[in-house]
């Protein structure tokens, strides 16, 4: 029998802050976390885009050497939010290590800075003794695709299932979705789910080369990205992390846990074709599948967190899909307008922000949406800060490879 799945803890590292109060302040005051791209002495001088969703505040890590030695920057992010989400959930150490709690956590491609360290062994500088260079013993552990998930299991002694999605922009929405299904069908009592990505210019270079990055606002970073706006010129890569603790409702209720929200549905499919181009049929199917899994009528959804990367075609296709499924029903916001595209972390960060919005009963405007592109005008855009209760929300994410996801959340009213 299917179980109800609730969220009992969360934590985020985002370009607009960490705490609920800090994130909400940025959203309500319209303050962007997009900053100039840092010089990295590597790629930054060759990239046209000069902006990045940046975490520009210090984080006080307090990890033992035996834990931190296998972590690249991405795992520092992951373990920090995991530690805080577990603490917020109130789960005791016995439960965490019981085998009934698992981890679903990923990143776009492990730690790119650790990967660079490996590549350096093939390209030693002139005069360096090549026979004395080698791949560092921990470089693979820092760089491997599942590095975030297993550094988390090591740090907390977690012995349950490990799922480590690595599907670019749907990485952490899959983490939550697969974690939700794992608890729903009784395979685990709780799942620690999320994703992370570190500051990385190679990701910017990839999208820049595909002409998908914003380049016209390098001198005014806060004015980009511009989801659904006529002047949008592409996405802005960002960094960050997020973690949520999903738990069987009865398990959470028995221990008197504070419940932040409920996951009531999840869909995941593929466009079955092109690896890059957005696909109206695939995305529309994702949205309708999510409604079906949650047994919802479209009219019951109050808020849509759109993927909305601010690319030319992506936004149009997404708006058309939302329009065809929901019409002008739910209010739609593109939260990447505040933080940029945090890649493997975007799904969980947008989920956490949506939980905060549900708790506050507000909807922020899509930042920089000054004039809606007429091709995106068929939906109800959020263009100003509004007090509005959100009972049910959809969080949409789409990735290279044609992977689409949609999570359905419900406010927990007891």
């Amino acid at each position: 029998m299917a179980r109800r799945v609730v969220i009992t803890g969360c934590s985020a590292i985002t370009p607009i802050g960490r705490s609920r109060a800090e994130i909400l302040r940025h959203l309500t005051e319209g303050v962007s976390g997009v900053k100039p791209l840092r010089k990295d002495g590597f790629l930054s001088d060759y990239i046209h885009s000069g902006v990045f969703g940046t975490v520009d505040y210090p984080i006080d890590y307090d990890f033992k050497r035996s834990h931190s030695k296998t972590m690249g920057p991405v795992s520092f992010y992951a373990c920090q939010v995991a530690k805080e989400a577990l603490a917020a959930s109130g789960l005791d150490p016995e439960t965490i290590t019981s085998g009934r709690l698992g981890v679903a956590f990923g990143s776009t491609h492990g730690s790119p800075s650790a990967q660079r360290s490996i590549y350096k062994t093939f390209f030693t500088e002139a005069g360096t003794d090549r026979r004395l260079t080698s791949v560092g013993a921990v470089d693979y552990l820092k760089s491997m695709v599942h590095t975030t998930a297993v550094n988390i299991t090591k740090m907390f002694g977690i012995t349950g299932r490990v799922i480590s999605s690595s599907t670019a922009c749907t990485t952490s929405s899959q983490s939550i979705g697969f974690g939700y299904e794992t608890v729903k069908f009784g395979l685990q009592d709780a799942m620690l789910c999320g994703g992370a990505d570190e500051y990385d210019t190679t990701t910017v270079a990839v999208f820049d080369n595909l002409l998908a990055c914003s380049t016209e606002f390098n001198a005014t970073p806060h004015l980009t990205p511009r989801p659904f706006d006529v002047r949008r010129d592409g996405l802005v890569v960002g960094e960050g992390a997020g973690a949520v603790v999903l738990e069987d409702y009865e398990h959470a209720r028995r221990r008197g846990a504070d419940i932040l929200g409920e996951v009531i549905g999840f869909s995941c499919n593929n466009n079955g074709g092109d690896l890059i181009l957005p696909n109206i049929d695939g995305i529309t199917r994702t949205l309708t599948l999510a409604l079906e899994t949650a047994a919802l009528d479209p009219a019951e959804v109050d808020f849509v967190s759109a993927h909305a990367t601010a690319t030319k075609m992506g936004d149009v296709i997404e708006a058309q899909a939302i329009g065809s499924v929901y019409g002008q029903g739910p209010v739609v916001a593109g939260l990447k307008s505040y933080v940029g595209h945090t890649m493997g972390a975007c799904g969980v960060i947008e989920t956490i922000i949506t939980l905060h919005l549900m708790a506050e009963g507000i909807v922020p405007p899509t930042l920089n949406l000054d004039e809606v592109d007429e091709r995106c005008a068929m939906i109800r855009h959020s263009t100003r800060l509004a007090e509005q209760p959100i009972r049910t929300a959809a969080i949409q994410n789409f990735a290279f490879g044609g992977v689409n996801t949609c999570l359905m959340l419900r406010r927990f009213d007891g």
Partner: protein
Amino acid sequence: MGRDQIKTALFRVFKDKFQIVDPGVDENLRDAYEFDSIDAVELLHEIELMLDSKLTQAEKKSAMDIRTINQIVDYIESLSAARAGAGADGAGERLSAAER
């Protein structure tokens, strides 16, 4: 390289590479500092740099039971002596100028 020089160089490696400051010379590094096999592999690379000589697989495997700083110093001394005794063509894989 004398024993004291080796010890000084080792302490610097432990501080810079492993954030272990002034370990006791007879302390079990695994018990006291969670110094595990991954750390040991990293240390072997540092020893190669210290000796300016590549270690053979057999030499590396023979180090896996080492637990204390004093044992590491003994190990480095023996490697150093083997290389000195064997000359430029000798033990391990001492590098010729042409290979560098």
